[in-house]
């Protein structure tokens, strides 16, 4: 067992956040699990409401309250607890940032297969609680595929372990799943055990620039790629507005990543070059160049730490649809009117079905666009969650969308874990 403490981050936490809410009258910054449990137990007994925050990038994600009684910050509860290279598992505290974790693991040629936005600020606790994923989810899966065990402080102050430290485990219910994506409404995650993968020996990024009129051809090509032998780690499509910002080319761009041993990566790049339909151009970045691109890509969307200036309104949507319907989401903007004061940047994964829409502009147009994207997603049986929005607007727009018919099960689960609504009250779907 190797223990390593990561130096504390210098990023200070804003206790008060007028714009995004989810703040607290009082700040608790525990440095041990016991302290976390004590804060919860006491609050629970005294009928106080607690908001949990790790890196604080997601204060604009859900939540109807400006202030809770206590803001429980886990940003100082960080570090690697256990890493056994031969087992390819790691146990960390929730306040560890993604970047800190990946840097620690890279010395061993290993990685956590998650590529969320803002790795410098986003913490592993926040990423898991919010179930964030990035483009390479196509190959590696999302948080629910990596987490094998958790320690969770329940509102009553008890510590519950879920899962374990081994990579395969079906003993009892798969309780890990309950806390992933629960937005901290069921318990505070105090320790996370994940399975690791070797850092790929080679990687490259093939960019395919597609003129608007060739979108249909692209669709066929994507089907061909999927039917072929190549194994992309991403098939992330980018709309012309975002493409212009990233590459200064106002066309659709498809980002096809390959990660494997050298020979395999070269072979797949070559396959792409040979099969690209006429009229589309290709650009390949290898190794560090590809890494550099993904780093920049991870900071595209605003977050509640960066989005502090007034002026235009910013919103970020997470849309889930069937994989191929991502193309439809890309095109929603074409049917929209009154968007003269609105910038719409979109990227979506044709291998995983998650589309991210970044809206920047005049408030009423942002609101209108949210409704239109949601209507389109719902017509495809999908959903649109607004994952970044000022608190004032969150009170007007239901950021989580409609409740499923089985919402009573969510209520039942919440009530079982947190009968007094102590934790992150009203942060989640249906006001849970």
């Amino acid at each position, binding site marked *: 067992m190797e223990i390593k403490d990561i130096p504390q981050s210098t990023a200070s936490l804003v206790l008060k956040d007028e714009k995004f809410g989810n703040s607290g009258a009082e700040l608790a910054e525990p440095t041990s699990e016991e302290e976390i449990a004590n804060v919860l137990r006491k609050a629970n007994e005294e009928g106080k409401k607690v908001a949990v925050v790790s890196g604080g990038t997601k204060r604009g994600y859900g939540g109807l309250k400006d202030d809770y009684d206590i803001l429980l910050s886990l940003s100082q509860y960080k570090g690697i607890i256990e890493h056994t290279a031969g087992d390819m598992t790691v146990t960390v505290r929730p306040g560890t940032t993604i970047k800190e974790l990946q840097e620690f693991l890279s010395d061993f040629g290993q990685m956590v297969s998650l590529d969320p936005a803002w790795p410098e600020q986003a913490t592993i606790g926040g990423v898991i609680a919010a179930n964030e994923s990035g483009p390479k989810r196509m190959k590696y899966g999302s948080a629910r595929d990596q987490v094998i065990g958790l320690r969770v402080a329940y509102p009553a102050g008890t510590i519950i372990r879920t899962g374990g430290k081994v990579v395969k485990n*079906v003993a009892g219910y798969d309780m890990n799943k*309950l806390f992933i994506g629960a937005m901290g409404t069921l318990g505070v995650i105090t320790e996370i055990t994940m399975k690791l993968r070797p850092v790929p020996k080679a990687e490259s990024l093939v960019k395919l620039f597609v003129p608007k009129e060739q979108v249909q051809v692209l669709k066929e090509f994507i089907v061909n790629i999927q039917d072929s032998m190549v194994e992309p780690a991403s098939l992330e499509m980018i709309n012309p507005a975002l493409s212009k910002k990233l590459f200064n080319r106002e066309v659709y761009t498809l980002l096809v990543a390959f990660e494997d041993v050298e*020979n395999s990566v070269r*072979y797949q790049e070559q396959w792409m070059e040979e099969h690209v339909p006429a009229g589309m151009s290709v650009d390949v970045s290898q190794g560090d160049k590809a890494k550099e691109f993904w780093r920049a890509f991870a900071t595209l969307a605003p977050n509640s730490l960066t989005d502090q200036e007034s002026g235009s309104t910013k919103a970020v949507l997470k849309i889930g649809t069937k994989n191929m319907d991502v193309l439809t989401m890309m095109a929603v903007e074409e049917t929209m009117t009154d968007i003269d004061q609105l910038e719409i940047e979109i990227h979506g994964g044709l291998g995983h079905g998650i589309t991210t829409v970044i809206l920047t502009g005049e408030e009423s147009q942002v609101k209108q666009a949210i409704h239109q994207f949601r209507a389109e997603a719902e017509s495809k049986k999908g959903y649109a969650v607004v994952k970044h929005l000022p608190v004032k607007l969150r009170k007007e727009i239901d950021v989580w969308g409609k409740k*499923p018919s089985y919402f009573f099960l969510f209520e039942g689960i919440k009530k079982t874990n947190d009968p007094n609504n102590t934790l992150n009250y009203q942060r989640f779907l249906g006001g849970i």
Partner: protein
Amino acid sequence: MSLFKSRRKKKTRRDVHIEQMAAIVGPDEILFEKEDLLSYDCDGFTVHKAMPKAVVFPKNTEEVAALVKYCAAHDLPFLARGAGTGLSGGAIPLNGEVIISLGKMKNLLHVDFENRQAVVQPGFVNLKLTNSISSKGYYYAPDPSSQYVCTIGGNVAENAGGAHCLKYGVTTNHILGLEVVLPNGEVIEISEDGIPDSPGYDLMGLLTGSEGTLGIVTKITVRILKNPEGKQTVLAYFDNVEDGSRAVSGIISAGIVPAALEMMDKTAIEGVEAGTFPVGHPKDIEALLLIEVDGIAAGIDEQIEQILEVCKSRNVREVKVAESEEERGKWWANRKTGFGAMGAISPDYLVQDGVIPRSRLPEVLQRITEISEESGLRIANIFHAGDGNLHPLILFDSRIPGETEKALEAGTACLKACADVGGSITGEHGVGIEKKEEMRFIFTDEELDAQTRIREVFNPEDLLNKGKLFPTPSRCMDIKTIVKDTVAVK
């Protein structure tokens, strides 16, 4: 005349519930006579038996819902059953349950290659899915050794794994959507059309692996994958288990993610060589590894080279790469029929299913050898070495008084050995009845309580598959008395 009589007799034995349920599914879709029920008194875990009240065969979700509503309204305990291959007793009607068999809901409903998904009914057999899509070059990844008979519904309930789960993940990583009949008869659809991350708590993840205690799955959307371009398989023979185990760690630490990495020890090899698919493994080796690498063909050779290097550095006696698809197929048939092959060298066997951190393999295998010596029973090991999922097969003869108890005790000791190194008591076969008490090896009372409270949200009356998965509330039972209880019912 006599025919008439026997019919009348049957009629009088039919109680009102049987009549009512027959009205839901049709008179030919229900079994209730003792002789018809006999084959439903256990599943793949055969040391425990109990008779169901009836077995019903609904044809669609509406019938399942109607049956469940009926049972709920009349306080009749009930449970779901797929193919009955479960190895932990999950489908055994401990409380005289009405068994709702999904055996007649066995259709492939839809395949969507563009979106890489397929929709199946719960009784659809695992291997049939791959067979139905292989002509297009696609397959369904989770491949339990029982895949030619077990159902995808049963796989969801058990979160089944298989040899190729090391690289591709287990059932839960391949389920995109579920239709479920809740214990009150309400039908819900989670992640309809396989849409990812549907907002709210991850009920799909929670239901997968819940061993049929939270609801009955009636429709499943699964991910399908494209066949890898290339595949190569290596067979390596070792003169001692330690070297074999170290080779496993060596391969993993070299940054290779094999599709499969399986191990067998000497006793297991004796079994498979006496079984239906002998390969001609040398009789005097202590361990063999079966290693498969798949992916882009251009990248496989260098990984195979590395694997051969690792094996050589661990004193391998002989190592070879399969030269043809036929040879590869033979090696896998030999491995996948490994459990059954134990029948050739022992009248009975009990398979266990512990998981350990991979790096602890040598010491745990040593401990299992000691358990074998202490119990006087032979233990064969065939297992998924790559993910640390052990399958000690405890060989015994139930005709010899006391030997079944000894086998169960040895099984428990193996699980304790796994728990002691920070492992788990089950990696893919589930807890069922078999490992209920062993849950205490890894969970505290509070942790068990956190889980049972979740069950109560779904299954408040506890009519669905009651008495499974969780230990009886009384604290710290003596293992011996449990063994007695379990065997007494036999």
